[in-house]
């Protein structure tokens, strides 16, 4: 089995806020991320798939196809958007880096032919990233 990783980038706005908490609690828990005017990041996404090398093509998965899937399922939906306001999965879920990793996994799981999704890594910035290995990992 071979692991193959493809990177993609998107830039988006977000803020952290839970309506079930008081404004004071939101500010205590989320700090400057609770500013309702939002802020943004350049995110880097790393998607790792696992599979066998096809003896004819030498590929685990066609990289062009994987790029198109990432573009269609994730980048095209998240890039230059406000995650809280424009991306349906974050209407009620706070778009933390952890939750973005889970959401990207759900968007991609089962959509990549010939390979199994192994890991989704989301960098909010170079010094902070979240990894998700699936619902049952």
């Amino acid at each position, binding site marked *: 089995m071979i692991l193959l990783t493809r990177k993609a980038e998107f830039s988006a706005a977000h803020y*952290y806020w*839970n309506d*079930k*908490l008081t404004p004071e609690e939101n500010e205590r*828990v*989320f*700090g400057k991320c609770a500013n309702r005017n939002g802020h943004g990041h350049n995110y880097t996404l790393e998607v790792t798939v696992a599979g066998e090398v096809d003896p004819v093509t030498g590929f685990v998965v066609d990289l062009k196809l994987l790029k198109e899937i990432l573009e269609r399922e994730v980048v095209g939906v998240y890039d230059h958007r406000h995650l809280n306001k424009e991306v349906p999965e974050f209407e009620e*879920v*706070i*778009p*933390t*880096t*952890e*939750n973005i*990793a*889970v959401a990207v996994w759900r968007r991609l799981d089962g959509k990549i032919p010939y390979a199994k999704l192994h890991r989704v890594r989301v960098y909010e910035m*170079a*010094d*902070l*990233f*979240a*990894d*998700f*290995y699936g*619902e049952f*990992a």
Partner: protein
Amino acid sequence: MKAYLSRRYHLSASHRLHAEGLSDEVNRETYGKCNNPYGHGHNYVVQVTVSGSIDPETGMVVNLAELDGFAQKRVVSQFDHTNLNLAEEFRQLVPTTENFAVVLQRIFAEFGAAKVEHVHVEETGNNSFEYAGEALPQVGRW
């Protein structure tokens, strides 16, 4: 539903690799330029990975401000712009980056708010070391 969160912290420190139990000659052979008498320094990057379930209320594995506060107090302010050889932790331990990773993993293990999976330390862009706990190093093995 388990997720992993990794955070990187930067600190600059000096060190000299020299084992007291070895002759000067063997030290020079073993550590090369890292044994130069007055020490040298690096910009270290300390990457800690914690894991846990995502809190449905906050969307977080761990409150980053809490992790940052811990790292600032227990790691960055302890080691940044210091000479590692003089730190209490290295009184009997050569401050190789392997040993630094072990020392840092032990410190982060006291964080408590999330499980610490591993600590990865970059000494330069080309050298990095990782420690996930378990066996403790033999202190003073030289």
